[in-house]
């Protein structure tokens, strides 16, 4: 009984909180008579959102943005996994390139957008590159950590069973690093979304980010708000997909079963 109530809790609290926030927003802008050009009331944003969803251009722009995010993310996952595994397995290589990794990691990658545009043009390629570059590091660094974190005792089991290198990789290392890969992917999908949108803001001629810039330039705050909502929903949907994949692939891991059984 108590368990059931705990499960229902987020389904009740989250919608209530959202309603409360919208109500506060409404009261705030009406009571203080805020200029709707600066901060439109929720009703106007809602109307703008309905209009937006009826526009064919929005859907094709969303498809462009989604393509950039997903392509950048997938390239980042595959390359991050490969580089992370290699660096994790070859310590001398990791040591020699570590300073470069640190430099690349701390450099503000968004600042490279003008260069990406010069190299890859104004179309979706430069946005995919930015999404990839942003999502690559969390994936790669997590995988690297995962390869290093294989339990010594489990390695000894494989040794005592006379396992080959490839068997140790497929039965132990690869499976043991899956939770790390997914941790990197959960950060990576958010960063890929940011990368695609920022790319469109700065150098876009299509996509939702470009529509945001256009709406802002025509001082249409409600439409800007509505577009940001659409972008947030896309980000949320992508995150939930990655989360579902995690539940499917590593049901044995604490981060998955722990959530289900926390209050039992």
């Amino acid at each position, binding site marked *: 009984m108590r368990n059931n109530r705990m499960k229902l809790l987020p389904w009740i609290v989250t919608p209530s909180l959202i309603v409360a926030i919208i109500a506060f927003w409404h009261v705030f802008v009406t009571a203080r008579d805020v200029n709707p050009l600066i901060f439109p009331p929720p009703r106007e944003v809602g109307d703008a959102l309905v209009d937006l969803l009826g526009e064919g251009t929005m859907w094709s722009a969303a498809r462009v943005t989604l393509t950039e995010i997903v392509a950048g993310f997938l390239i980042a996952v595959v390359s991050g996994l490969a580089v992370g595994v290699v660096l994790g397995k070859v310590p001398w290589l990791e040591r020699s390139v570590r300073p470069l990794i640190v430099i690349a990691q701390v450099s503000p990658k968004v600042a490279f957008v003008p260069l990406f545009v010069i190299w890859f043009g104004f179309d979706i390629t430069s946005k995919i590159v930015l999404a990839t570059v942003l999502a690559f590091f969390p994936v790669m660094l997590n995988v690297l950590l995962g390869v290093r974190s294989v*339990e010594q*005792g489990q390695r000894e*089991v494989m040794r005592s069973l006379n396992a080959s290198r490839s068997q140790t990789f497929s039965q132990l290392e690869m499976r043991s690093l899956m939770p790390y890969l997914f941790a990197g992917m959960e950060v990576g999908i958010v960063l890929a979304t940011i990368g695609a949108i920022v790319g469109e803001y700065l150098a876009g001629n299509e996509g939702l980010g470009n529509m945001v810039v256009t709406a802002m330039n025509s001082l249409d705050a409600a439409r800007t708000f509505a577009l940001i909502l659409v972008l947030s929903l896309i980000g949320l949907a992508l995150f939930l997909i990655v989360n579902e994949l995690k539940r499917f692939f590593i049901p044995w891991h604490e981060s998955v079963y722990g959530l289900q059984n926390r209050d039992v």
Partner: protein
Amino acid sequence: MTRVAREARIKGEVARIAMPDNTTTAEPVVSEAGTDTPRLSITDVGRDFHTRNGVIHAVSGIHLEIQRGEFVALIGRSGCGKTTVLRMIGGLLPPTGGVIEVDSKPLWRDGRVDSSAVTKLGFVFQEANLFPWFSVIDNIALPLKLRGVGKRERRTRAKELAELVGLTGFEGSYPRELSGGMRQRAAIARALSTEPDLLLMDEPFGALDALTRERMNLELQRIVLETSSTVVFVTHDIPEAVFLADRVVQMTPRPGRINKILRVDFAKPRDVDLQTTPEFNDIVRSLRHELDEEE
């Protein structure tokens, strides 16, 4: 139980023990051909570790022969090298001197382990070290999977082993859903899955509570008798060693050597009540005194 005993046990035969020169009950090594050859033969084995402060002789001058079907316990304080010896027998740590032979075949050659000899061994660690991404049945079947045994066959085998170690009904569970004792049962089943000629156990019940431990000792005795296994069992628990073993090998540290080998002749299977008999306690007491005198 559907398992067939692999080999007839040579029971009641006098175990031949090779002892270091400084011990009292040294016996000459008698070497014979055929099935009488020992399962495991350790000759003058030592292991040095090189550290910043020089060479540490962790283990030196170990002589030991273990017959088929024999249960030998290695006891001693922590740091006496008993685990080091077991890891050398298990193919996990190369000795720096001496020869280890499994069925008259050298296990180590130039610091490299002979993989065909390792396949005859089964190792149970202090931690169960199960793979959390596999169910119990897949954990037990892992060694068979590595050997290319087909899925159906290894599942059938693993099911039998789950029954043998008392895990029926938990085949599909994940390791996290098991208690410590059950995990260790699964680890034992995993080690038995390849029908090893020699089962090596490194304080397998060290992390369990006293009651579970007692039950596991009985279970282990039953499993070993049912499978006619040859076992080397490392523990620091003297009653556990005396209860389980045909011979107790007592080691002393710095450097780790064999100090004394004691036969334990109680009939098998042994009952828990044996542990309260004066005969049992005499043996335990004498071993304990021996360990105390090291100080």
